[in-house]
């Protein structure tokens, strides 16, 4: 299976990459690690005439703390983030990154690519929405900043203009007493998740001060519910409150029936995922060391 023919460009810096995008417009596509793009090209989905390979650009693979923010270069790989001690200060981040697809894909696939593909089943949109991430974008008219919430418009659709590239992802480091967990179920290591859920809880004296709850694979883009979060906030969280919040957020989701399962199956799974993520975050808030992330048969 070969991709359709294309011309190959390997810019030496971001400015050249942006200039190539501006020149070729919709005829061009950016490739970082290629782990989403190459399978699509092989299936002849979204063929393009010009391929711009930014995978070797220097200085885009950093993972650094500056003040209260974690800065991750767009070309940092899933594997690199999953193994990074600094990234592990946000438990949901490390466990999501370390469980994406398999080791082979984690060697090549990047956080920037995984986010910008905006696949409804992808892990990065879900986890970065959970953690209130922001991206830095470089384009022909300069640099701008955008929240991941505003970046993700729809399935496979972002707010990026034709000549723009995401260069860095910024994550606010969690405040005191804040823990998180990310849970995903997939049929095999290599597969996209069937369902996923993430939770971040700020606890004080066993009461939840602030809650963040997201679902992946449950609609065209990441599902959030202020109502579900409000059900957790101010409460002493137990299985019952977790299940109520799960019911609420799953009720506003639209999981598509497909080869991975029926809508009813996915709704049931999503509820389980929320409760499981909540259990893990609570255990972490009590100081327990819990390994988590993706589960597969």
């Amino acid at each position, binding site marked *: *299976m*070969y*991709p*359709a*023919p*294309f*011309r*190959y460009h*390997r810019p030496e810096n971001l400015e050249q990459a942006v200039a190539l995008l501006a020149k070729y417009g919709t005829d061009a596509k950016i490739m970082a690690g*290629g*782990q989403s793009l*190459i*399978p699509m*090209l*092989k*299936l002849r989905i979204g063929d393009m005439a010009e*391929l711009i*390979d930014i*995978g070797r650009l220097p200085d885009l693979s950093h993972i650094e703390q500056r003040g209260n923010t974690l800065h991750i270069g767009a070309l940092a790989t899933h*594997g690199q983030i999953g193994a990074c001690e600094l990234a592990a200060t946000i438990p949901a981040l490390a466990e999501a990154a370390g469980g994406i*697809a*398999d*080791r*082979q*894909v984690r*060697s*090549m696939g990047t956080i920037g690519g995984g986010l910008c593909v905006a696949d409804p089943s992808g892990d990065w949109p879900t986890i970065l929405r959970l953690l209130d991430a922001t991206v830095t974008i470089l384009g022909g008219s300069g640099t701008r900043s955008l929240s991941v919430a505003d970046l993700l418009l729809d399935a496979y659709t972002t707010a990026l203009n034709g000549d723009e590239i995401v260069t860095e992802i910024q994550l606010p480091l969690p405040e005191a007493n804040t823990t998180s967990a990310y849970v995903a179920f997939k049929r*095999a*290591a*290599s*597969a996209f998740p069937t369902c996923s859920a993430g939770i971040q809880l700020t606890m004080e004296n066993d009461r939840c001060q602030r809650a963040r709850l997201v679902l992946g694979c449950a609609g065209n883009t990441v599902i959030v519910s202020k109502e579900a979060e409000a059900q957790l906030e101010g409460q002493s969280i137990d299985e019952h409150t977790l299940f109520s919040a799960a019911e609420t957020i799953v009720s506003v989701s639209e999981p598509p029936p497909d080869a991975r399962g029926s809508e009813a199956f996915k709704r049931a799974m999503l509820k389980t995922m929320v409760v499981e993520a909540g259990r893990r975050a609570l255990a972490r808030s009590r100081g327990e060391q819990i390994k988590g992330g993706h589960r*597969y048969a």
Partner: protein
Amino acid sequence: MPDKIVIDVNVNGLDYQREIEPRLLLVEFIREELGLTGTHIGCDTSYCGACSVVLNGKLVKSCTCLAVQADGAKVETVEGLETDGELHPLQSAFSEHHGLQCGYCTPGMLMASKTLLDENPNPSEEEIRKGIGGNLCRCTGYVNIIKAVDAASQALAVNVGGES
């Protein structure tokens, strides 16, 4: 037809230069251009891992890399495991423990196991299972593959101990 480009790749210690189409996949480059057919194409959809090779020290699926992504890189394939006709301890262990039946997935399994043991010389059973998670086998049920990787890790530890 778009312009061809020239790439330089070191495969199993030998330097190769070829003029290729940019759409050529790394696995096709290895098999068709270099004639190294030990690397297998199993699914061609990024699921099975039969085509796994080591690219600059990292395990990748060569059906999901373009050959141009390996320009200037070092690639290791299953043909590079043996030394002067001596099987690599992983190859010996797969043979001794029946870690294969039809053998189709084996080149990928070996490369995945090699990078696993490079990173973690003494993996637990769970770590072996996770380490070969991206490689599918439809014959063995994995039990003997796991035994083989475990045996190889012990053999390698003895070898290292013997040399020091």
